[in-house]
């Protein structure tokens, strides 16, 4: 098993230029935006002289290359700089937002699997029949509805009408977090499940027609035990990669959902930082998201190897 994970350190090495590239692109792109933090900080009292003075004080009049090298130098010491808006370490702000977004994403993943696996199994058990058509209609609907709209509808139905869940926010204790994050996670799960269901349904139908399932059936296996022991693991192989790719996109989706549900995660931090031209914070969040996507990519491959013993990514790396 460990032998087959030898590709992980290689992938990690390969991801260094990717993350480095992201810092370069983000750094120079945010500085291309017109406007600067002083304009935002000074509000209606901003005059050209006062803006210039404050920018000078913030070190924003230095040449861009110098600013970038300073940023990179600090990065090697794991220092992401000071947030211009809050005048405190960016690491502190990011550290409080990362767990929130990560738990939201993990929660969404669990919910989406809880929705997808039974529905895919239901559809695949009788291809072309009414329940299959119903599941496929659900996936079309799920894909067609914009995320923010689903979010608002869930708030209206479960938050305002039924009062079963809070309307946005994050709560203060772990139990409250689970409770508060349910609706946003469900929204993301609904957005994520259609592709998972379709992929899982197709591969399940495929697997159900294979010889080894026929053999298992002849030995008396049926129903849920058959599905769990013989079908799911094999059918899941293509779906694992799809979920991995989707998780990357989901980070983007969480930006919108965090706003609708007032979840103080990375998305909210990023959006506010962009409006405030809080350059160090924008860079830090971009860096964290890039790292996240890279790690999810590697983890997907690890899971893939674990689910399917035939896959040997380590030997592919060598080839």
């Amino acid at each position: 098993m460990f032998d087959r994970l030898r590709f992980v350190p290689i992938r990690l090495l390969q991801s260094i230029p990717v993350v480095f590239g992201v810092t370069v692109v983000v750094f120079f792109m945010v500085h291309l935006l017109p406007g600067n933090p002083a304009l935002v900080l000074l509000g209606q009292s901003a005059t050209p002289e006062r803006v210039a003075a404050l920018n000078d004080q913030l070190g924003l009049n230095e040449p861009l290359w110098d600013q970038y090298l300073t940023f990179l130098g600090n990065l090697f010491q794991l220092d992401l700089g000071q947030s211009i808006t809050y005048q405190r370490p960016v690491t502190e702000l990011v550290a409080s937002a990362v767990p929130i977004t990560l738990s939201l994403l993990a929660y969404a993943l669990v919910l989406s699997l809880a929705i997808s696996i039974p529905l895919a199994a239901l559809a695949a058990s009788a291809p072309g029949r009414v329940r299959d058509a119903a599941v496929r209609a659900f996936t079309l609907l799920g894909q067609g509805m914009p995320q923010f709209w689903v979010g608002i509808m869930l708030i209206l139905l479960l938050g305002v009408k039924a009062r079963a869940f809070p309307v946005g926010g994050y709560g203060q204790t772990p139990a409250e977090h689970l409770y508060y994050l349910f609706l946003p996670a469900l929204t993301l799960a609904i957005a994520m499940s259609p592709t998972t269901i379709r992929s899982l349904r197709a591969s399940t139908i495929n697997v159900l027609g294979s010889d080894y399932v026929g053999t298992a059936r002849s030995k008396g296996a049926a129903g849920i035990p058959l599905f769990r022991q013989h079908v799911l693991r094999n059918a899941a192989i293509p779906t694992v990669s799809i979920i991995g790719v989707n998780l990357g996109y989901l980070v983007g989706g969480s930006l919108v959902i965090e706003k609708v549900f007032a979840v103080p995660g990375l998305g909210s931090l990023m959006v506010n930082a962009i409006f405030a031209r809080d350059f160090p914070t924008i860079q830090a969040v971009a860096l964290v998201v890039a790292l996240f996507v890279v790690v999810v990519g590697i983890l997907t491959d690890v899971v893939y190897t674990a689910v399917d013993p035939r896959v040997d990514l380590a030997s592919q790396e060598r080839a």
Partner: protein
Amino acid sequence: MTRTTRTRYAAVVAVAAVALSACGGGSSSSSAGGDSSEPVQGGDLTIARAADAISMDKTTTFDNNSIYVMQQMMQPLFTVSDDGSEVQPLLATGYEVSDDQLTYTITLRDDVSFTNGDPMTAEDVKFSLDENTATGSDGWGFVNAAIDTVSVVDDQTVTVALKYPWAPLIADLSIFANGIIPADYDGQTAEQFYEAPVGTGPFVWDEWQRGQYLKLTANPDYWGDAGPYLDSVTWTVVPDANTRKLQLQGGQIDIDDTPDWSSFESLSSTPGVTATAFPSTRMDYIAFNQQVEPFSDVHVRRAIAFAIDRESMVDAVLYGNGEAANSLLSPGTPYYDESVEGPTFDLDEARAEMAQSSVPDGFSTSLLIASGDPNQASVAQIMQSQLAELGIDMEIRQLEPTANKQARLASDFDMTISAWTMDIPDPDQWTSFAVDPEGGSHSAFTYWDDQAVIDLNQQAQREIDSDARQDLYTQIQEQAGESAFLAYLYYSPYAYAMTESVQGFQVTPLGNYPLAEVYKTP
């Protein structure tokens, strides 16, 4: 919209309102704080707003979300009255002015303590005012530009010596940036102190999870006669206006800061919810860049100012919750003169002005607005169709909000929409910014330069007698209106929605809301 259709529209709304209230039963009134019952002790108040505070440093923070919080902890010597028309003593008991108008002697209350237990003395006052003055143009120090020295006479008396006679001084001392804190930051560095500030106010610092919530708790030893009644106040960050509205309707929050005008009506008809429009000092206007032709021509500016149908804008943008603007000053600002006749909607007058102008056949121009602001977009669309009647082809130019500010500062615009809200209960802060090219902004970025008005403004700064000052500010308002260097649009109030259990919540025209006397009924 013409006048007749507007009347008809109003009639339909009135009928609909009667019908709704007949079947709705529990629809609420739209006045807050009018409850005469006894204040109730206890309870936690939650206020949701679009953005977080950014800093508690009163001398260098320009952000309202921060200011409204720090004002609950740190109090100035004087404060504005509820209607914004005058300045009253708060930590001071009164003041005297010397004959040469260069020395103010201020006496302090002797019963005020900081929340760390120390009594407030003249030393603390001197330290606090000097601290703000020292920030100069990097902070609110510019407000104290007229102050030469602050001296301690005895524990309860300070004198403020001025460089030149300066009428707005007492109003300037009422700004939050001149709030009183313990001398020498209570033995800490400024940075440490403002992490958890100490003042004399009804609430004390508790906790701040940046991006999530900020919480203050009641000061049990508050010096004031009334309050605080609440146990705590928490400001939460809820960026989406729709989510704030739903949280209020779902009972998750007590106060929704700045609901959209489009949802204001539906909020005020929600049972158990009160929506209130508090008079403000905000004035929205169109600025003409006089460096760009033909805007140096007064007839062009006047033509546009006459062509704007302000009443339609109040209906379309504010859903009727505001007033067409007639003056450079807003009704919540001292020395506002309601008799001043700024240009009002009159197409014949507008055509006559165009005929006299350098471009009688019209011209092409653009209006700079901030993207994502539905109010500015509506104003722009209304203007576009109205200016077309004068042969003016107006393009709407949208820029992201910060890029929009940058363009305004660089005078990279033909016309733009902007707004001003007072921080000080004295017109000078705004008039010096707007009419004096030396005020730092080239006359609100218009490059208007009228010596007669500049002189009037400087006289008003030095005139102590309030009748004489009124006369000067009336002249400024008249001449500014005639020159149409800005086309005033409307005065919009501050929108708040709250549950009916919230009592005594009042917003002053400056936008701040003292929470000492707010309470919640069970």
